[in-house]
């Protein structure tokens, strides 16, 4: 009998630790009021904090831990989508992400040994940022923390734990516990970014309509030397995993994420034993490839969705508001999109430049996005884990036809990658709102034009100087900057708009309106609507 293989383990990642510093609120005679207080220093909370600081809004982030990532775990999210990357470009950390992460755009789906479907997301991209970069989540959080500390060294309060929240009509009172004692602060707006297991959500008595899925998976994050393409590979039914699904993705530091679908009745403890996980890897990589484990983690899907993302002065973002199956990277990216949607709205409301109803537009848009993400990921989950003989038959039909018929390939659903969700029509955007990619415009980009002050852009293909000058008065009174751009440019090509159409772009790079024959009055009306300001002056 051959000697049992000895499995190698990489040393654990050493994550940064930041010190607890007693906040000035401790022992203060009067409770201090802050415009925005964020609970939770994960992806959505940190993105929002960074966004608000760049907009000149004072922020307090309360984090009960003193580091990033999840203790003992290698990583959670790994794929960051174009809209997230464009947001990080605006926040000033994109170059770090690009340098550390793995840029990719091609995905392939296999059945057995055959490729049955592929896509290249570059085909639809006009942006300066790529469709996707893979990076361990803790690196991203680390970069965000460093950026936030550049902007305000005291914004993040480590080891500050929210104990309770009391809602008032104009503020929330947040009770906080620290190693140096307890204190309370007042928040004009309190943001719950404490994640899937939010106690704040529970304390406010909100039903998140949680459900659990029976499909079971086991992640192995592994480092090995085998030249594999830098692409997203998925197997519907891998011969090296007893005919079940497998995911294969590269992250930073040459770490591959291999995610194996397990029998739904499998015991999570036994399938994650190094010996069992090691044999799975051996079957996939072959006998001669040396590898070392970085992390092994079994999991099951769950989902939940709050009915509304705003309750009084408390706003929910990220996993605290919604959780979907992880297919297509629609978890973390949507927490980041929540933050991108909310940041400019809170900034303008706090500064008195927009109506308070704009905060409700956050729920209207991001709840709709969460519903869409839930629908999209549930369809993937159903394709990957057929529940009956009939469902297995349907999937077999797709796979059989996909070999020779292009139409059937589109039915093979191993995840629809996260995109910037389109928002439905609303009082603030009667035609709905859709994302504008970070296209190059002359010597700058959309993101470049949006940097600095919190304001809308009026991008006007083919406009003359006099036409733009006629909007100077508007730009003095309301947060907008109007720019003439070339009649035929990346903007008109992406949006398919005719020359002379003014494109009203929000600070989160969403198109709020397109005005075919703009006049100062029609631009002002559209802008006021998008700002939730009274129609009349």
């Amino acid at each position, binding site marked *: 009998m051959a000697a049992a293989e000895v499995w190698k383990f990489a040393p654990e990642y050493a994550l940064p630790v930041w010190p607890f510093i007693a906040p000035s609120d401790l022992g203060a005679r009067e409770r201090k009021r802050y415009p925005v207080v964020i609970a939770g220093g994960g992806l959505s909370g940190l993105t929002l904090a960074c966004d608000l600081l760049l907009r000149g809004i004072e922020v307090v982030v309360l984090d009960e831990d003193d580091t990033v990532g999840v203790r003992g775990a290698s990583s959670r999210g790994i794929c960051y989508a174009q809209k997230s990357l464009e947001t990080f470009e605006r926040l000033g950390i994109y170059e770090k992400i690009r340098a550390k992460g793995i840029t990719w755009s091609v995905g392939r789906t296999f059945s057995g040994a055959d490729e049955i479907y592929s896509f290249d997301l570059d085909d639809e991209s006009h942006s300066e940022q790529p469709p996707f970069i893979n990076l361990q989540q803790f690196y991203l959080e680390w970069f965000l923390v460093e950026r936030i500390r550049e902007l305000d060294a005291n914004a993040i309060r480590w080891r500050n734990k929210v104990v309770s929240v009391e809602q008032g009509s104009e503020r929330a009172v947040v009770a906080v516990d620290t190693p140096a004692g307890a204190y309370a602060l007042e928040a004009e707006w309190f943001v719950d970014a404490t994640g899937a297991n939010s106690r704040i959500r529970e304390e406010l008595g909100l039903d998140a309509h949680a459900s659990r899925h029976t499909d079971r998976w086991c992640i192995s994050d592994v480092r090995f030397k085998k030249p594999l393409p830098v692409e997203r590979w998925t197997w519907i039914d891998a011969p090296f995993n007893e005919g079940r699904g497998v995911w294969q993705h590269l992250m930073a530091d040459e770490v591959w994420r291999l995610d194996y679908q397990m029998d739904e009745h499998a015991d999570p403890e036994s399938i994650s034993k190094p010996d069992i996980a090691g044999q799975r890897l051996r079957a996939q990589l072959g006998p001669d490839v040396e590898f070392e484990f970085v992390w092994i983690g079994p999991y099951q899907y769950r989902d939940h969705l709050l009915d509304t993302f705003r309750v009084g002065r408390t706003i929910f973002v990220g996993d605290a508001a919604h959780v979907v199956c992880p297919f297509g990277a629609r978890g973390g990216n949507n927490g980041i999109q929540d933050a991108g949607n909310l940041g400019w709205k809170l900034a303008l409301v706090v500064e008195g430049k927009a109506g308070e109803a704009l905060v409700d537009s956050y729920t209207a848009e991001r709840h709709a996005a969460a519903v869409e993400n839930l629908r999209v990921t549930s369809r993937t989950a159903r394709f990957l884990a057929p529940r009956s003989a009939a469902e297995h*038959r*349907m999937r*077999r*039909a*797709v796979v*059989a*036809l996909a070999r020779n*018929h292009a*139409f*059937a390939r589109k*039915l093979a659903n191993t995840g629809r990658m996260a995109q910037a969700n389109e928002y439905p029509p609303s009082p603030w955007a009667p035609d709905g709102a859709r994302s504008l990619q970070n296209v190059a415009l002359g010597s700058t980009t959309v993101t470049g034009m949006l940097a600095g002050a919190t304001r809308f852009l009026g991008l006007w293909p083919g406009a003359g100087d006099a036409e733009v000058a006629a909007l100077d008065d508007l730009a003095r009174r309301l947060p907008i900057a109007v720019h003439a751009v070339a009649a035929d440019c990346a903007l008109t090509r992406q949006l398919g708009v005719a020359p002379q159409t003014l494109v009203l772009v929000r600070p989160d790079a969403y198109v709020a309106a397109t005005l075919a024959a703009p006049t100062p009055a029609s631009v002002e009306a559209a802008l006021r609507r998008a700002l939730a300001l009274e129609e009349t002056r």
Partner: protein
Amino acid sequence: MKSVSNIADADAFYEAWIAAHEGLSDAESADLDARLVLVLANQVGELQVLLDCIAAARRAGG
């Protein structure tokens, strides 16, 4: 969804459909029909028509 006859030669189609199933086990027949549904669905294309077709077939099953 069309309810009136639209198949150019209905009897010839039915004959061919039967012939395609000849010699297959029940499971193989069911697999064939599943593939046939997909191929035909792609000819129809329009989602609302497909949804109407699914509903009509389901209703006819009682």
